[in-house]
């Protein structure tokens, strides 16, 4: 009985610690998502920590795409299942009017391909819904680029 109670206490402690500490590391997320980049070369990633509150919030990532370069962005999430829509704009949230160049995606499913005609800084916004306060997770935007041909290695 004593040992069983110790196990229960340990499990509860782990749950509590992981929920309060739990900002994720990129390694596993990148491992899961990198297949979606093929045949693009890995270029980098942007990791955004999410700490849910009882109010919705917006989290922004800034990304510059160079003219005529081909890009692919794969979005991955860790440690939450809430639906988080993505909107991508061609100006920051400070602008009075801006174009939304990508909709209908959520962080769990989205892949964004683009080849901008001119060098453009994009503002990716994660529309984080209200949820259990202090619940944590993260969104990782994995970035790939391509010149023309895919890399084929021996």
């Amino acid at each position, binding site marked *: 009985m004593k040992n069983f109670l110790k196990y229960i206490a340990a499990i509860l402690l782990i749950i509590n610690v992981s929920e309060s500490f739990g900002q994720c590391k*990129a390694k596993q997320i990148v491992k899961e998502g990198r297949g979606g980049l093929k045949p693009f070369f890995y270029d980098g990633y942007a990791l955004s920590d999410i700490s849910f509150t009882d109010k919705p919030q917006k989290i*922004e990532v*800034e990304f510059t795409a160079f003219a005529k370069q081909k890009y692919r962005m794969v979005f991955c999430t860790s440690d939450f299942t809430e639906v988080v829509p993505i909107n991508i704009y061609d100006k920051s949230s400070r602008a009075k009017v801006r174009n939304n*160049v990508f909709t209908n995606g959520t962080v769990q499913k989205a892949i964004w391909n683009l080849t901008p005609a*001119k060098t453009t800084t994009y503002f990716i916004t994660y529309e984080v819904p209200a949820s259990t306060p202090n619940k944590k997770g993260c969104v990782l935007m994995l970035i790939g680029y391509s010149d023309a041909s895919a890399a084929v290695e021996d």
Partner: protein
Amino acid sequence: MNFKNIKTIRTLFAAFAVFTIVSCGQDNGSEAQDNEQPVVDSNKTEESTGAATVSLPSPLQIASIFKRSGLVYIEGLTNPVSNITNYSSNSSKAVNLGVYSSDMAYCVLNKQNQNSINYLKSSRELANQLGMGSIFETGGISTRFESNLSKEDSLASIIAELQMQSDLFLEENELEHVSAIIFAGAWVESMYIGTKVYEKTNNEKVTSRIVEQMTISNNIVKVLKSHETKDPSIAGIITNLQSINDTYSNFESVKKTAAANEDENGDSPTLSKEEIKMLITKIDEVRNKMIKE
């Protein structure tokens, strides 16, 4: 409760402890579509919570952008591998790991096989000294590099993988500030190579790429500033990069274009010959400071 199932409980506990829900977009044709007709979001938009995360390109991507614009190989431009003995502080090692990464990308994309190997070795040596040498052994990167010397695409793929291992290592070890320092060195070196090739060839496309790269220079400073408290050497790197930004933003052509543009995504300025010369001089100065230390 059957206490004889403690073993089962233990197994379940272990499984729970390591289980992390990860979900990624899949390329199965169900990806969200780019808007062919961009939707104007004219409502007053709410400001985002907190500062935006900034994403910076890899040295390999920068090198490939320059290459597509006709950046040719010129012997002697890159930082000599013999300079590696100059770098005693962790900061100078990190900066020059970035410098050598750019040099390696430049050599790979211009099919300079022996120099590519030399820069791989120098990069590995500096990485070892910084405690991150394992990234070269993950997936047999060094061996694969040498086996694929004649295949530019394969080498580019390997360098991309090395970049990924480096990013993940630094993130896992909470050394993101080192990543920012490495990138600063890589970016300055790429700009240096671009400006020097332009000086010799007068290729206007290369100038356009140089101006294009200046669009991210403020972001590099922003990222460095976000890590400033983690390493006292970052202040000096910021000063150096800011001096390039200040030189550039004080050009008449840049000021005129900025005034005419509504925002950061407007038209790019066309620098005068004199302005290009001044920018080249400033980049030269910063780069030579970086590789001497």
